[in-house]
């Protein structure tokens, strides 16, 4: 795809996203806000798993950490919510980086298991610090109203707010991944020894990647706390982490746009499955999952890329 075509595509997607509130109800908008939140979390996981080749089954824990950071700051200290999102991101960056250091010794499936432990532990840890987290009762928040006297419903405002965060973080990730750092991250995935031989500090890069990945997921968690206006340990079970992993594989590994496709999938497909069959929604979901993997082995983003490439070839052929 030419850079020009890519720019047009991004601009078109952005225009659709911006115009969306004109056409859909507050409820639908709330769903799309969740898609945006998931997309940020998926991008975070994709940086780690897709680009750097480290498998994490525990990103739900960072999502929870971000959500609770935001919720506690708003609930206990009345901190303005944009600030809590930043704090959630920074905190997860630090925790993710620190977790990344011992995780360096673990490769592939072993790392997956270590992070899985994180996902298993988090609901109980949250219940243990009841004084802060409200135990299994959780913390109830209020939805923020639109600032500056804008005539927007809280749902519309949150949609634009989340979208703005998403665009900023996606731009940041693109710059990170397309440059020197990105090449180093990918090189470690493809062949760690070769990367090291070329002067890449693999230990530092791996830990940093883990930190950045956790930070993205933490920001998403913080946003989710505000969008849902409630946090509770039951929202952050193991299934959430697995859902994230499903999302990046379906969306497309090592693809930035894949995060958005994946987010759309994990938000809407379970609902469709339920509409199709009340009795066995997860069986239907499973069929969707297998179908997608069979038809699009490189995820939705991979399939789109392939289709565009084919169209492009046909275009040049016709012109010639």
């Amino acid at each position: 795809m030419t850079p020009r075509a890519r720019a047009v595509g991004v601009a078109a997607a952005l225009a659709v996203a911006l115009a969306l509130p004109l056409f859909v109800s507050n409820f639908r908008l709330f769903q799309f806000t969740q898609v945006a939140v998931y997309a940020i979390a998926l991008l975070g996981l994709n940086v780690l798993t897709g680009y750097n080749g480290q498998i994490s089954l525990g990103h739900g824990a960072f999502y929870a950490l971000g959500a609770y950071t935001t919720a506690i700051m708003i609930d206990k200290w009345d901190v303005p919510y944009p600030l809590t999102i930043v704090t959630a991101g920074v905190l997860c960056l630090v925790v993710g980086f620190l977790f990344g250091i011992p995780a360096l010794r673990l490769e592939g499936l072993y790392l997956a298991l270590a992070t899985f432990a994180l996902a298993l532990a988090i609901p109980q840890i949250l219940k243990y610090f009841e004084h802060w987290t409200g135990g299994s009762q959780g913390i109830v928040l209020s939805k923020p109203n639109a600032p500056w006297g804008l005539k927007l419903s809280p749902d519309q405002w949150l949609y634009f707010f989340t979208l703005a965060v998403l665009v900023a973080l996606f731009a940041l990730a693109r710059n990170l991944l397309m440059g020197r750092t990105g090449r180093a991250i990918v090189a470690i995935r493809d062949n760690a020894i070769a990367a090291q031989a070329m002067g890449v500090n693999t230990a530092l890069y791996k830990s940093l990647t883990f930190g950045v990945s956790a930070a993205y997921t933490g920001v998403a968690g913080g946003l989710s706390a505000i969008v849902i206006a409630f946090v509770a340990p039951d929202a952050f079970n193991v299934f959430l982490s697995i859902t994230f992993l499903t999302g990046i594989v379906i969306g497309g590994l090592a693809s930035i746009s894949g995060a958005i496709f994946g987010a759309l999938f994990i938000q809407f497909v379970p609902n469709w499955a339920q509409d199709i069959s009340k009795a066995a929604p997860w069986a239907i979901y499973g069929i969707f999952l297998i179908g997608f993997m069979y038809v699009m082995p490189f995820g939705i983003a991979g399939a789109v890329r392939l289709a565009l490439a084919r169209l492009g070839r046909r275009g040049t052929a016709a012109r010639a």
Partner: protein
Amino acid sequence: MLRRTVLSALIAALALAPAPAMAADTPGVTATEIKIGHTNPYSGPASAYGTIGKVITAYFKKINDEGGINGRKINFVSYDDSYSPPKTVEMVRKLVEQDQVAFVFNTLGTPTNSAIHKYMNQQKTPQLFVATGATKWGDPQNFPWTMGWQPTYQAEGHIFAQHVLKTVPNAKVGILYQNDDYGKDYVKGLKDALGDAAKKIIVIEQTYEVTDPTVDSQIVNLKNSGANVFYNVTIPKFAVQAIKKTHDIGWKPVHLLNSVSSSVGVVLKPAGLEASKDIVTARYLKDVTDPQWKNDPGYKEWLAFMQKYYPDGSTVDDFNVYGYTAAQGLVQVLKQAGSDLSRANVMKQAASLKDLGLPMLLPGIKVNTGPTDFYPIEQEQLAKFDGERWVNFGEIYDASKK
């Protein structure tokens, strides 16, 4: 050029955002139908509760087959939330904003209902007869659109405390409870009702996590503490273990078992009927596995209903009695509301239930609500297991009267 297009799209979006519209009539109510929303975990870790949604659906089918209520059929829309609060928010918003239900009924779970508590009250849409034993649902002052249903765990704790104070001289209570809200609520109820004496009477507290394999060591600790009363706050799986172990190590305390695990078929039989002898519990529903109700008209009616409308459902599962009874409570509210099914009137009628007896409630237990009383069922009765069935004894305890 592109930048300008994007910018103008943004401005248009901000300027044209529609203001929330006001509905004139009650959503979900037509001349022939009333639409009611519901969420329940049909999948996920709490899916054992899923049968409650199924039995309620089946009961409304029966009501519709019999002509509905005041000429209106019930359109019951039930979604799976997997016991995940964010999913509950999404599904309930779908019910209220998109499906346009008149109200939601018997949404299940404490964290899940907490997540929609504020929203329902902002929407002024009833959140009726929620399926949780937490105490916070009966707060008409701050949350006039939310109402509980079953006796709260704390209320049951009060009953047990009364029983201990009245019948066990020199009581030394040992507690085993699940380390979450449910367990803590039970313990709080007991302590509150014991009052100042609690510190002296309660000699040991042991906890377990739902994920623990057994509670054997906790039982040994309880025995070694010298306690002569065992306050057993466990869910069925652990209740079976606790009863067995208590019996096996020869500990013979006054055994108080929470109603959550009082099913004869699910708990006492697997634990051993001999080991279960003399256990005391508190109940408000008839236990369908208890032979004493075999010829009870209420039980026979329930059984006939189960066979005709929900043949896949288990006839030894308490949850199928629970959902059936809650649905009957709602039917009474709708009957009372007559032709005025506005949300305000539904709430008003729910808060005007007077001495309503239902077929599967224990004899003498009535549903009562009022403008300041949003706890529909507050009565329970103690029962002692005689090796075969629960034998009710003593008065019917009413948590609303201190």
